[in-house]
């Protein structure tokens, strides 16, 4: 290997950098079997934090549009549902709320349950579950409890509430907490301004709901057959005409530096 090649590869080694990544999944490893999930809102009002059901639906829509629907390497698309007036989760724990959700959807609601929200610092809870029917559902509850006579959510502007809702929707999709403090799925909000997903959040949803092959294989794991044949055929099809042109015209000094 000549000196120039050594320098070249030394530069490559120098380029290696370390970044904090470390997404996790919920312990059940559940995920939706579909790539389009509807986000609905429970019909009960949020009496203590002052959020109306329509506003909560708007917040949920903005949360999915500004965060989870932004990832090109994921096929998962979350869409706005409706306010389900027949569902009341005002005093439910998360497990109680989950049995009220229909399959392949996520329910967002306000709960004043003081067992679930025993601290003002807990802004919301969310999770994914499998019903006895086998259907996968997700649910998240926003803190509507009065702890010490106040509710922290009530004083939060929409710009801070959206990431909270998006974080809990992440749990409802099957994503766990991240070790990256910048990630949306980090366990604490702190003083962080969350305007975009971090690369770790991209990886998390891409891992759970990968974008399928254009060849229609729909590959979601290494157990599936990769579309080698499709890509190889595409390459061969595109390269052959140029090879023939190249051979027929002979070598020309076109790319001179």
């Amino acid at each position, binding site marked *: 290997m000549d000196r120039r090649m050594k320098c070249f590869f030394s530069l490559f080694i120098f380029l290696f950098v370390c970044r904090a990544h470390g997404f996790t999944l919920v312990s059940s490893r559940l995920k939706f079997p579909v790539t389009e999930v509807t986000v609905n809102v429970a019909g009960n009002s949020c009496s203590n934090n002052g959020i109306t059901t329509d506003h909560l639906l708007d917040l949920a829509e903005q949360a999915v549009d500004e965060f989870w629907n932004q990832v090109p390497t994921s096929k998962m698309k979350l869409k706005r549902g409706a306010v389900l007036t027949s569902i009341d989760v005002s005093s439910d724990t998360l497990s109680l709320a989950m049995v009220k959700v229909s399959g392949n959807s996520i329910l967002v609601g306000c709960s004043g349950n003081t067992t679930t929200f025993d601290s003002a610092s807990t802004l919301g809870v969310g999770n994914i579950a499998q019903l006895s029917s086998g259907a996968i559902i997700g649910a998240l509850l926003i803190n509507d409890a009065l702890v010490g006579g106040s509710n922290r959510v009530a004083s939060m502007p929409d710009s801070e509430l959206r990431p909270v809702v998006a974080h809990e929707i992440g749990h409802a999709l099957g994503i766990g907490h991240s070790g990256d403090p910048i990630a949306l799925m980090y366990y604490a909000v702190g003083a962080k301004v969350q305007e975009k997903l*971090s690369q770790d959040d991209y990886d998390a949803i891409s891992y759970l709901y990968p974008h399928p092959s254009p060849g229609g294989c729909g590959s979601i794991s290494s157990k599936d057959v990769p579309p080698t044949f499709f890509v190889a055929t595409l390459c061969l099809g595109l390269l052959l005409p140029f090879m023939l042109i*190249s051979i027929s015209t002979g070598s020309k000094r*076109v790319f001179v530096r």
Partner: protein
Amino acid sequence: MNLAVRRDRPIPLRTKKLNKFAKTNIFFLLLIFPIIGHAIVSIGGYVPFGPATQKEADGKRNTTTYHPMLGLNGIIPIMNAHLFMPEGGAVFHRNQFDEVSKKTLFLLLDFGYVCNQEFVLRYGLGSFLTKIGGDGGLIAMPNGSSTLNFAKPDHTSTSYNTTIDFGLDYGINKNYSLKLEGFIFSLLNSQSRKLSYALTFNYYLD
């Protein structure tokens, strides 16, 4: 630079750790490239979805945090100043935690237009494979005021994306060039349309 056909020098490339898919494609490229034109090794940095990802607590975007990439290019003259410039390669994402491993493989079917002796305009289609995986198990992480067990990724998951590519190749001298290239993901979807870009330093093998 001479475009003479070279068959005497195989391009060294380790493929032991790559999966069957990558092996097949790299083998295919190795067969084709030495026969049809120049072979170029490129190294550089790849910024996935740069401005659309956050890297600081104050909301600052991730515009320059790169991941090292290695590529193998070919140049095939088509006619006049037009070139076919296929490229295959890999991005080696480096993670601080052991829980997650990530690798991106790409195959670009780019065309080039020789603007002058220094600049080549590139455009074309690309295929990106993003492989994310882990060894499984559980990990205790903070959850509110206590901790909770979360699951680590236990298999490899692959996303396939087709991209629109555009870029500029600047020839430094007869052996080296500098290439800046952008890759548009999900062109037809306004929500998930994202731009990744790469800056690479290229070395001509012949």
